[in-house]
């Protein structure tokens, strides 16, 4: 059986020069975002990460996106930060947007055991990228606009009183 170190050595040997760039960027973004998240509101950090204009650029194929997203996870295995879904998603989006991919951070919620709320964040580009936590199980949050509310709201009118049916 191969040891963990040997497996890592094998993985590292397969990393191309471009992928080393992704790894380096990911490490830098991870450190920068860790500092930013401690100093700034999440909305400000999100705005900075997603603010880069990416419209009209050719998009890499799905396999390339997923490969980049997986590479982004590597630095978190050695950096002394908690590799939360939010941190990973933020770095994935930052790295992808540097490559002009219109990725966004999505937030979702699901009920666990019927009552407890569980939250998740993931990078999204026409579907979740690097979906290790099963984003499909979560109901994605939407911006609050009257149109979004109207589209999502499910409200049953009150039942007609018994004498109304006569």
């Amino acid at each position, binding site marked *: 059986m191969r040891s963990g170190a040997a497996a890592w050595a094998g993985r590292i040997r397969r990393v191309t020069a471009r992928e080393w760039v992704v790894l380096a960027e990911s490490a830098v973004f991870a450190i920068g975002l860790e500092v930013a998240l401690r100093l700034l*509101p*999440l*909305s400000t950090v*999100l705005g900075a990460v997603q603010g880069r204009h990416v419209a009209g650029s050719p998009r890499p194929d799905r396999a390339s996106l997923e490969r980049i997203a997986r590479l982004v996870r590597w630095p978190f295995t050695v950096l002394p930060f908690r590799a*939360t*879904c*939010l941190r990973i998603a933020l770095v994935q989006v930052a790295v992808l947007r540097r490559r002009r991919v219109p990725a966004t951070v999505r*937030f*979702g*919620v699901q*009920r666990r055991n019927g009552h407890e*709320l569980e*939250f*998740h*964040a993931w990078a999204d580009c026409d579907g979740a990228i690097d979906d290790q936590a099963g984003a499909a199980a979560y*109901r*994605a*949050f*939407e*911006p*609050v*606009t*009257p149109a*979004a*509310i*109207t589209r*999502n*709201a*499910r*409200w049953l*009118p*009150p039942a007609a009183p018994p004498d109304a049916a006569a």
Partner: protein
Amino acid sequence: MPERADSNTSPRHASGAQAFAASPSVVFRQMDDGAVLLDLESGVYFGLDEVGTRVWTLLVEQKTPDAVCQVMLDEFDVDPGVLAEDVRRLVGELQQNGLLRTT
């Protein structure tokens, strides 16, 4: 991820004729038994039951608390005074927690 809000402080007074809008940092998710509001500014989430969700839905359609009460009186068998007080208190709490702002 966010933790549940603890809003046990007294709400700010909300005028019944004042229109409100959701804060731009708030995102919304309808659930089977209500809704969840996530404030990306603070990272705190807030749960609404079905009635609270209805109040929120009407409020962000640019309705005033008075107009919300008018709509809900047609939907619920409730004393107008009790409804007005409940709506006023909820609006105050939403405002106090930065989820709603006046327009």
